[in-house]
């Protein structure tokens, strides 16, 4: 093998009485190396994050479009979702009734059923109007847009919340509003 004879000595050749060096086997036990290999693999597999960031597309409306050119939504197919603080969700169908009878509280779990129900009822007329108030977070906004894609709502709009609605949301959340 690769070892050199370093025995030194008198420089004479090994005599007949000297025992021959035993030939060592060239086989190496690879078990520990395999162990190490798989250990590293498991380490890499568990530590790498598979979740690549993804992008959600959103088109914005052009504010300069004249009101007469804009699409009118049918009240029968409208569902307005209001986002408040602490992940609160409120909604009403059609127009907000003067006695507030159609204003309902919900949350991110239950709103899906509501959207599905409304979708079946309104069919092609469905338009979801999303109105986040100033207390809602970016996450709420993404979540509700996500609901739109989960339930395949084709038409939805993000609209600024009106004063009346904002006050109503705040009041329902228990904030003192004059």
């Amino acid at each position, binding site marked *: 093998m690769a070892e050199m004879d370093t025995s030194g000595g008198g420089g004479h050749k090994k005599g007949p009485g000297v025992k021959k060096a035993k030939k060592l086997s060239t086989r190496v*036990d*690879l*078990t520990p*190396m*395999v162990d190490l*290999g*798989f250990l*590293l*693999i498991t380490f*890499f*597999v568990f530590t*790498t*994050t598979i*979740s*690549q*960031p*993804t*992008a*959600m*597309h*959103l*088109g*914005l*409306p*052009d*504010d300069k479009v004249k009101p007469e050119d804009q699409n009118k939504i049918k009240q029968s197919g409208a569902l307005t979702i209001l*986002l408040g603080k602490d992940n609160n969700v409120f909604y009403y169908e059609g127009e907000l009734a003067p006695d507030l009878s159609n204003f309902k509280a919900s949350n991110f779990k239950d709103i*899906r059923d509501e959207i*599905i129900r409304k979708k079946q009822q309104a069919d092609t007329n469905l338009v979801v109007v999303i109105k*986040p*108030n*100033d*207390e*809602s*977070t*970016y*996450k*709420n*906004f*993404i*979540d509700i*847009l*996500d609901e739109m*894609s*989960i*339930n*395949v709502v*084709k038409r939805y709009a993000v609209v*600024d919340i009106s004063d009346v609605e904002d006050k109503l949301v705040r009041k329902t959340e228990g904030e003192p509003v004059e």
Partner: protein
Amino acid sequence: MSRPKIARKSTIVDMTAMCDVAFLILSFFILTTKPKPSEAVPIQTPKSVANKTVPDKNAIMISLNNEGHVYLSVSDNATDRDKKKSMLEDINQRNNLGLTADEIASLVKQPFIGTPLAQLKQQAHLQIAQISSKNLPGIPAQDTTNNQMIEWIRAAAAAYAGDHLDLILKGDNVAKYPVFKNILTAFKKNEQFKFQMVTNQANVPQGTELYKQNVSGKAAAL
């Protein structure tokens, strides 16, 4: 009756092949994983079922952190750096900031812009290691009267005129909606009506309509 003697086999298995496989897989994993780029602005993005990947060139990323501070960065490759330079020169000229060529070059090298226009000169003199969301106040976009994002998006649109530009918005879970709305206003004012929002991938909930669409093999209409 005498049974035929079964020859005793050695229990030692040749590990070479297994070793080869293990290291092959290992090298595959090491070479295919991209190290996560260290982010100067830590942001927890929300989850969504969107499944398109974020573009990494011709893109301007606007980061919105948990405190509502806004930072702007341009993708990191040669052509985009040129665009960033022309953006900065444009901004410098229009707002009379008096930045020198050296200061602009230093800003181009820095990972993101995170100061009001008036303080850009100070940011240009910071070391790259000092550039983090802790040291920089962010681009003002909190109130509608002083929304400097409008100016930045205008410069970006001008720099990428005739070229494809992806606007990417990366917001934190707890960022408040008004700042986000002001950024949208900045997009709209500059007639940039399409943009993307960075999210983490989440699975489509079972039984929903999108889930059924995906199962039946139809492309999801997003």
